[in-house]
């Protein structure tokens, strides 16, 4: 009887552990799922961006279309920016202004400029959804955030060309929505914090309705992104993601 105990113990442990082993996700898998659930074949949304800085608060409205991971078009509808468009395609960013007779191409260091004076830079906007290309992911722990159970992961940049060397993200265990993200330097200095304040459902996915981005280096600097309406996979004329269309 006693000789069989170690074997029983082993089998017992295995039996208990098996489910967890079977169902535990790796950091990479979490990230992969997170990316997958935030990517659509096409989208159309209407939203606003509210910027607060030393001079006060300002709001701009826009319409936005996207295609897969790489192409997107934003058109501003608020008065101060009416008619201005930002097109992201073929790895570059193009700006269209109604009073300009040429497109302005943003590349290299110019992308680091902030869009509309907000805490979001053009570079942030051209960020591709292939997180694992740029970062190594590590699962730190699980934590409850805003009443939701989340995975807390640390992303470490693989190369120097990644803007944020370290990211810490809170990913909803159920919906894979990123509730919070902390962006830091390699030394761990906090640069920006993104937090989702409200969500909405689209089909079986949960997406951020209102997100707040705060620049932690500058006091009194924050940006609020709000999605007012959203359409997943609408029929889109693909030509809107071309340069020719931009100048229309």
């Amino acid at each position, binding site marked *: 009887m006693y000789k069989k105990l170690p074997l029983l113990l082993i089998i017992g442990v295995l039996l208990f552990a098996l489910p967890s082993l079977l169902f535990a996700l790796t950091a990479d898998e979490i990230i992969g799922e997170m990316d997958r659930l935030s990517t659509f074949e096409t989208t159309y949304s209407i939203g606003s961006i509210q*910027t607060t*800085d*030393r*001079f006060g608060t*300002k709001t*701009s409205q826009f319409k936005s279309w996207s295609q897969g991971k790489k192409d997107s078009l934003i058109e501003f509808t608020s008065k*101060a*920016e009416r008619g*201005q468009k930002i097109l992201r395609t073929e790895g570059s960013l193009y*700006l269209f*202004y109604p*009073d*300009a*007779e*040429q497109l*302005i*191409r943003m590349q290299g260091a*110019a992308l680091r400029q902030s869009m*509309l*004076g907000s805490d979001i830079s053009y570079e942030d906007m051209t960020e591709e959804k292939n997180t694992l290309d740029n970062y190594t992911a590590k699962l730190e722990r699980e934590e409850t955030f805003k009443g939701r159970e989340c995975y807390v992961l640390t992303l470490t940049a693989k190369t120097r060309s990644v803007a944020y060397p370290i990211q810490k993200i809170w990913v909803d265990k159920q919906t894979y929505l990123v509730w919070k993200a902390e962006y830091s330097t390699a030394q761990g200095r906090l640069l920006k914090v993104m937090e989702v304040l409200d969500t909405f459902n689209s089909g079986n996915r949960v997406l951020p309705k209102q997100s707040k981005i705060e620049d932690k280096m500058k006091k009194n600097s924050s940006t609020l992104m709000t999605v007012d309406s959203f359409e997943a996979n609408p029929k889109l004329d693909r030509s809107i993601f071309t340069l020719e269309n931009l100048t229309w």
Partner: protein
Amino acid sequence: MMTKLSKIAFRNIFRNLRRSILSGAAIAVSAMSIVMLFGLLDGMEHDMANNLKSYYTGEVRIRNVEFEKHERYNPLHLGVDWKKIEPILADNNSVVTATPRINFPASMYLGDETHGVMGIGVDFEREKAFIDFASILQEGRVPQSGKNEMLIGFALARDMHLTPGDKVTLLSTTATRGTNAITMEIVGTAGFPVAGLNANTIWAPIDRVQYFLRMGDLTQEILVLLTDGTDEKIVATQIQDEIQAKLGEETETRSWQNINMMYSLFKIAKISYYFIAVFFFVLGSTVIINTTMMIIFERMREIGMLSALGMHGSELTKLFLLEGFFISMIGSAVGVIIGYVGTYYMGKVGLNFTEAFSGMDMEISSILYPETSLVKTVIIWAYAVIISTLATFIPSRRASKIQPVEALRYV
């Protein structure tokens, strides 16, 4: 006794005309040079002040009271309302004219190539009293209000290979803290006497700039020109109070002397030049003193003779003093008159320097107008007289103390 001495002194002057003329000429040339030097310096100072006032500050500058605090961020939304302030200025008797301006840093795009420039929105018509664009044009013409046209510094045009007819796109941050871009046609190039403006600036009609930068009716600053002779500091305060009273708005209204950095540089340049003037003065004085002293020494025998004949001590000194005095009065007068006339003439005609200036090739030749000043001229005259009279004093006193025998032996 004095009149007798005076007569003797006078006769002495004519007795040895050559010597008198020599001495007088030295004094005259020195005095003339000093007068002309000051005329030149005044002209240069005036020129610098003019540049400062025309291109940067006006005589009085009006801005939003909050602007300075945030100046580093170029807060375009912190502007002043031109339409409301202009009538107040028009009412003020000390004001000749005023013009609105907007300074905005921008990126100039030609295709993919981009270059940082300083854009200035101006009312080309009103600017005539400040910057006469038509007269500094090198190519093309002055932009018209209401059109997307601009003027560009000639060095900038040359470096970017731009000519009138070319179009460029400007991208800038707006008053709503967003961005905007506008395409404008270059219709002319200008050569500014302030070198930096030639390499970095573009000038566009202010109404288009207000539209482009979403400024509505606001302008960033208003430059004001006052009638000649008014105290800028007093009028500045006056205007500030008037605007406060009529519009209930506080503004930053300052005279050009109180606009820190630029004026400091101007002051420094002024000091440097006056330092040189002092050197000059010393040189001129040295020549005067030297000449007068030489003459006294030359006349040692004569002094000895006079001494032997009974003229002594203070009388002798006074005699030579008087001689010196008369010669210097005439010599100095001749000198300053020639200097004054010469400066006046140069002031009318202008000194034109087309020599290649070392260093920065964004400079253009310009004309310098020396200025006459009656007050300064008279002071210089008096100074020369005093200096040369004093110069005769010391050696003549020494000479008068020498024993006649010694002096007579002098060869």
